[in-house]
């Protein structure tokens, strides 16, 4: 019995936390101390398990994934699905990220949500989310992964709509859930295809036999991977299913950090990395993945330029960075995609938690003076560096990381992805276009992050004269996790330090057993020597220019508080309104659907066919027939006698014949 075989404990701890906190939420919601201990404690315990598993794998790297089968789940004829967990290098990395970042965010939540009446409910949902997220990354076959996939969607819905008494929040939750369902449909179809082709749904089976069962670049593998990717676009907020993620900011900020930045939304990237053999065998799908990723990265980054809500900027930034990750895995640089996933988990969680700290301060200030100003609008901030110095410096680290400034973590992962796209361009020129889009995105990323920092922390304060005195730094329970994340954001690049800097690409070697087959099929010659240095230099230059431009442009103009600010005009308005994509979806999809539901399905089918024709119609028919029959009952004995006689004669004649 090794620690890896006890990996189910990592799931069991948060599950116990969910049950206890759920019971407390129903029974004694005021027991906040107990809720905090259970909520964060179970997560830290799970992190301990994850650490144990990781250290064991480090000591004796297994040849094949360790399958921990708990019980047979669907033993139906040829379909044998076990509830099984798979421990290998990739799942151990994800395990560490989910439980590690999850623990920090749970700790942060203790401070952030401390005064919320739904405290116990919040922690029970958050624990449940971690349960499903761990099932997702540990699942040894597609159905178990799918449990996690659906479960995190459920928890995402519950937590986005956490403050459900406001309709907008509840609507945002529903939007996220429904858009995810569209993607889940693709996932299911892909699973059906895989089952038909392989007769198995286990990752080890499918990935090992894929090169013999499927034809390289064939229609089937392309269909499977495209349907899988449809699932990814829903879960990971890519074009065309990305619009739910910015709305998901209606949830509490730690939720945005955990679910909508660090873990759940990266599930799609994880899925592509997990099934890398399939994607490697379908170059068309890989190009689609990379193209959608690049397009989403660029598209979301432009929207992020003109948002005022601090969380919305970060939300579009997340969509954009997820696009980067897909660009990476679509290029065949699976390790780079996962690497960016990990570093992004650090710096984006830090940015979100930092914004949470800012919002916390703003909210308290406005709450103290009973003001109804928007605590999340950056136009109401400014100069917060003076009041929240710790948050400022930590968010600055994250900003430098996301902008790709060396030596911060984002630089390494982002640079690898861009270099990979460039390298792929030699064989498929369209990847040069993706590379260019990636570079432009890098510039825009640096720009909008500089704008965010400048509007929030620099310049004169615009919060209001009475409120200013109430601004204060968050308590240590909130800044503590920020410090840890800041450290990870700063040095996270060391996990996969490239060769020319004296590193030996640790993450790449670590993940090699998982990625080897995919990389072998979809080989990629990474640029070396001067090309590599040139690419790096270009990326850094773009980042620096973006940052400088962002700070200068933002600080040069005078920013007015939200209620005094003139409305945007021209292209700025188009960006602020997110290219009117939501309105477009509303016109093209939602309203026709509502019309169809109301006019055709409700009034037509339900009221017309079901109610009128089927229910009332059959009643009317039997009543009519009954009326006809009742006409025979005249009450006149003579008539009865005639009928009787006729009948008797008829029977007689029939018998006599």
């Amino acid at each position, binding site marked *: 019995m090794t620690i890896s075989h006890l990996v189910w404990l990592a799931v069991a701890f948060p599950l116990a936390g969910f049950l206890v906190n759920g019971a407390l939420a129903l029974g004694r919601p005021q027991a906040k101390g107990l809720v905090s201990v259970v909520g964060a404690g179970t997560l830290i315990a799970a992190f301990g398990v994850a650490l144990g598993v990781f250290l064991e794998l480090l000591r004796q790297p297994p040849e094949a994934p360790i399958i921990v089968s708990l019980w047979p789940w669907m033993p139906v004829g040829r379909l044998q699905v076990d509830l099984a967990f798979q421990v290998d290098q990739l799942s151990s990395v994800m395990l560490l990220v989910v439980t590690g970042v999850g623990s920090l965010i749970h700790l942060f939540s203790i401070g952030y949500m401390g005064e919320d009446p739904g405290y116990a409910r919040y922690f029970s949902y958050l624990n449940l989310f971690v349960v499903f997220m761990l099932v997702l990354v540990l699942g040894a076959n597609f159905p178990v992964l799918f449990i996690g996939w659906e479960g995190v969607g459920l928890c995402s819905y519950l937590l986005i709509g956490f403050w459900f008494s406001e309709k907008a929040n509840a609507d945002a939750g529903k939007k996220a859930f429904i858009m995810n369902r569209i993607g889940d449909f693709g996932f299911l179809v892909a699973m059906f295809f895989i089952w038909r082709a392989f007769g198995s749904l286990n990752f080890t089976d499918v990935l090992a036999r894929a090169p013999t069962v499927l034809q390289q670049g064939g229609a089937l593998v392309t269909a499977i991977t495209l349907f899988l990717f449809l699932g990814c676009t829903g879960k990971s907020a890519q074009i065309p299913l990305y619009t739910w993620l910015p709305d998901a900011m209606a949830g509490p900020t730690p939720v945005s950090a955990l679910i909508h930045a660090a873990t759940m939304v990266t599930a799609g990237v994880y899925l592509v990395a997990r099934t890398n053999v399939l994607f490697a065998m379908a170059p068309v799908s890989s190009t689609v993945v990379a193209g959608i990723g690049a397009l989403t990265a660029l598209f979301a980054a432009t929207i992020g330029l003109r948002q005022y809500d601090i969380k919305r900027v970060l939300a579009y930034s997340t969509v954009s960075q997820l696009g980067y990750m897909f660009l990476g895995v679509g290029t065949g640089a699976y390790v780079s995609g996962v690497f960016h996933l990990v570093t992004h988990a650090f710096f984006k969680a830090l940015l979100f938690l930092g914004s949470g700290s800012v919002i916390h301060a703003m909210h308290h200030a406005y709450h103290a003076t009973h003001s109804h100003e928007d605590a999340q609008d950056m136009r109401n901030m400014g100069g917060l560096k003076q009041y929240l110095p710790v948050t400022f410096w930590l968010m600055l680290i994250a900003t430098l990381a996301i902008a790709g400034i060396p030596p911060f973590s984002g630089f390494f992962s982002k640079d690898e992805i861009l270099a990979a796209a460039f390298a792929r361009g030699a064989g498929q020129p369209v990847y040069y276009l993706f590379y260019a889009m990636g570079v432009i995105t890098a510039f825009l990323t640096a720009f909008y992050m500089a704008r965010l920092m400048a509007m929030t922390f620099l310049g004169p304060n615009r919060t209001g004269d009475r409120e200013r005195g109430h601004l204060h730094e968050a308590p240590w329970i909130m800044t503590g996790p920020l410090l840890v994340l800041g450290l990870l954001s700063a040095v996270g690049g060391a996990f996969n330090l490239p060769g020319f800097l004296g590193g030996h690409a640790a993450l790449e070697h670590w993940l090699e057993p998982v990625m080897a087959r995919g990389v072998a099929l979809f080989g990629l010659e990474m640029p070396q020597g001067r090309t590599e240095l040139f690419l790096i230099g270009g990326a850094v230059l773009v980042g620096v220019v973006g940052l400088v431009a962002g700070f200068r442009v933002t600080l040069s103009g005078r920013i007015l508080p939200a209620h005094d600010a003139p409305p945007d005009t021209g292209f700025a308005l188009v960006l602020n309104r997110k290219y009117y994509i939501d309105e477009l979806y509303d016109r093209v999809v939602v309203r026709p659907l509502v019309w169809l539901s109301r006019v055709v399905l409700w009034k037509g089918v339900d009221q017309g066919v079901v109610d009128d024709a089927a229910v009332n119609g059959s009643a009317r028919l039997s009543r009519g027939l009954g009326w006809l*029959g*009742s*006409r*025979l*009952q*005249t*009450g*006149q*004995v*003579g008539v009865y*006698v*005639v009928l009787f*006689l006729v009948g008797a004669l008829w029977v007689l004649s029939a018998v006599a014949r």
Partner: protein
Amino acid sequence: MLLGPSLLLSAILFSLGVAGVLLRRNAIVLFMCIELMLNAVNLTFVAFAQLYGASGYIIVFFVMTVAAAEAAVGLAIILAIFRHKQSVDLQNINLLHG
């Protein structure tokens, strides 16, 4: 043997009975017509009993018993109806119409 004339007479009597039931409205007359039909049938049984043995005679006794019982019940009903409606005209007795 008088089989032929007997059957002929029986047929005539039965037809009279049917015609009476169909055409007359008075409940008493109707009742008597039913008795007429029963007795026509009795005559048939008796006639055939000469050829096929005693079972025909025995059935006649049964029919007479049933007819007596029927008369008792039927007359009681008619009496009750008359008390209720001061009439035994069947056209007025149509409570069971649909």
